């Protein structure tokens, strides 16, 4: 770029100043629209959300525009709200079990597909389908599978003599959470499988062959060789899965709408309920901001690894 500047030697200094001024603006003709869009669609709403969380916002606010400033009251209210504490715990349970399920099954499948066999490429492609379906569709399918009387899951379990009575999967306080977790694991398997698969492809063959020749059992090879080499990637998958799982809304809302009796109410669905059902925007916004802090806390680790790859790219 420097070379080009010297080719177009400007003849007068005033022209030159105008040129450089224009030249400096050129980058912003490319990035400007995106910056404006991001500020309008993320920056301003996030600021607005913080502002709302410090106000007492009600239905009347939309008509009168009056929302008294209440400081941190919305946040302290939440700390003494048993439903908030319970939602926080349930979010943790939902996230931990979902991630254990997704990552272990995803890793298992990636190892299975690691060495190509006939039709393995086509099979891997098909395995991506659950990930591409709209969440509304996945949740609807599982509502049908979990159906008390006509659901296939109860039928199969009864045939196998695993249960005597059909289980009310999504309508009982005890089973609603396991049911939503199962659904969420199903949705998340393709992602972790695909990422682990690409990680396995990049492992150095010599090391694995050496371990094989040294007589390591498959179990040892996985835990002593493969797993340590995939540790950084596992960290990335873990972080992305956490930030994705704490915000799951569509799936829970369609399966159980947070019920029965709040048994599947997580922070995301509770925030929705406060804002859009109870029309209590201040508290809804406060939960939202807490959710952001949780997500970004985990994202911090991910960003550190990303910074390294950016630095490597520049070099």
């Amino acid at each position, binding site marked *: *770029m420097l070379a*080009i500047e010297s080719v177009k030697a400007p003849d007068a200094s005033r022209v030159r100043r105008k040129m450089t001024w224009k030249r400096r603006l*050129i980058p912003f003709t*490319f*990035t400007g*629209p*995106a*910056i404006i*869009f*991001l500020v309008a*669609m*993320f920056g301003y709403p996030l600021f607005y*959300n913080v502002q*709302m969380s410090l106000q007492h*916002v009600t239905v009347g606010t*939309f008509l009168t525009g009056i929302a008294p400033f209440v400081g941190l009251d919305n946040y302290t209210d939440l700390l003494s709200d048993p439903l908030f504490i319970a939602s926080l715990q349930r979010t943790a349970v939902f996230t931990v079990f979902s991630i254990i399920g997704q990552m272990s099954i995803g890793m298992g499948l990636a190892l*299975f597909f690691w060495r190509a*066999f006939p*039709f393995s490429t086509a099979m891997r*492609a098909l*395995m*991506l*389908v*659950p990930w*591409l*379906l*709209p*969440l*509304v*569709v996945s949740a*609807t*399918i*599982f509502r*049908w599978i979990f*159906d008390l*009387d*006509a659901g*296939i899951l109860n039928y199969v379990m009864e045939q196998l003599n695993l249960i005597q009575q059909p289980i009310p999967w999504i309508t009982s306080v005890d089973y609603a959470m396991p049911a939503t977790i199962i659904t969420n694991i199903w949705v998340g*398997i393709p992602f972790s499988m*695909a*990422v682990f698969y690409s990680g396995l492809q990049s492992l150095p063959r010599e090391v694995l062959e050496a371990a094989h020749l040294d007589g390591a059992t498959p179990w040892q090879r996985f835990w002593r060789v493969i797993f340590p080499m995939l540790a950084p990637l596992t960290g*990335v998958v873990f972080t992305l899965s956490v*930030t994705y799982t704490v*915000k799951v*809304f*569509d799936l829970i809302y*369609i399966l159980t709408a947070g019920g029965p009796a709040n048994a599947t109410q997580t922070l*995301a*669905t509770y*925030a*929705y309920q406060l*804002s859009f059902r109870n029309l209590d*925007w201040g508290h809804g916004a406060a939960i*939202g901001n807490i*959710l*952001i802090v949780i997500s*970004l806390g985990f994202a911090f680790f991910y*960003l550190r690894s*990303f910074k390294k790859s950016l630095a490597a*790219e520049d070099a």
Partner: protein
Amino acid sequence: MFRSRLAQDLTKLMIGLIVVGLVLFPVYWMANASFQPRIALLAATPSWFPLPPIIEGYQNALVSQGGSLLTSCFVACTSAILALAIATPCAYGLVIFKMRFTTFFIFVLLLVQMIPNVVMANALYTIFARAGWLNTYQSLILSDASLSVPFAILLLRAFMVSVPKTLTEAALVDGAGYWGAFFRVVLPLSRNGIITAGLFSFLFAWSDFLYALTMSTKQKIVPITLSIYQFIGTHGTDWTSVMATAVMASIPPIVLLLMGQRYITAGLMGGAVKE
């Protein structure tokens, strides 16, 4: 040696078929139910195969959901085009201009993708409500585009990094200017990246449920995702029609997968992690 290899392949193939069958069973079960008569679905013993297939569910679905499919198509296409129009020049700008804030900007793009949608919906709803933009196409299209713009910028940037700098510089020397180089050199060379970003932007908008749920308060603009949800509420036991609708809502994603499998896997990591 050859024989044992063959045996190994066959065993893996068999296990593979079982695994794929299990994982994809819910998808099959949706398709199966969509072709069954209503009564068969409520019977004590499930019928495993839709024989003979009944298209009544699809007829019902088309009559009551056809409009929603069109709405979703329109919203998803428009927001994908908008997202590409915003993201493509920006991605190129981040690649060729060494700006002080580039790294910071990329971090922001990564971070905003992690913000829970329900938080954005909370704020966007109140903002659009004040602007009188609830139940309008522009509020839904803008919100849906916000799902894909950060992702599309990162993805396109990862693609454009590999466009040889000498080519763009040649275009600049020829007097094309940066925008000329962008249109004549960079866009054609980043075709794959643009297709990938476009596919995903379409999918994100097509699959959106939360923005539709919150911003459509008057049944005026009802995308297919919201429509399915309302349909379960009112026709809870008509699983045939519900599943037929679900199948129709899944067709675009599955067609896109079949058409652009290599693009999909490229986009899986969002251009965020380099393999």
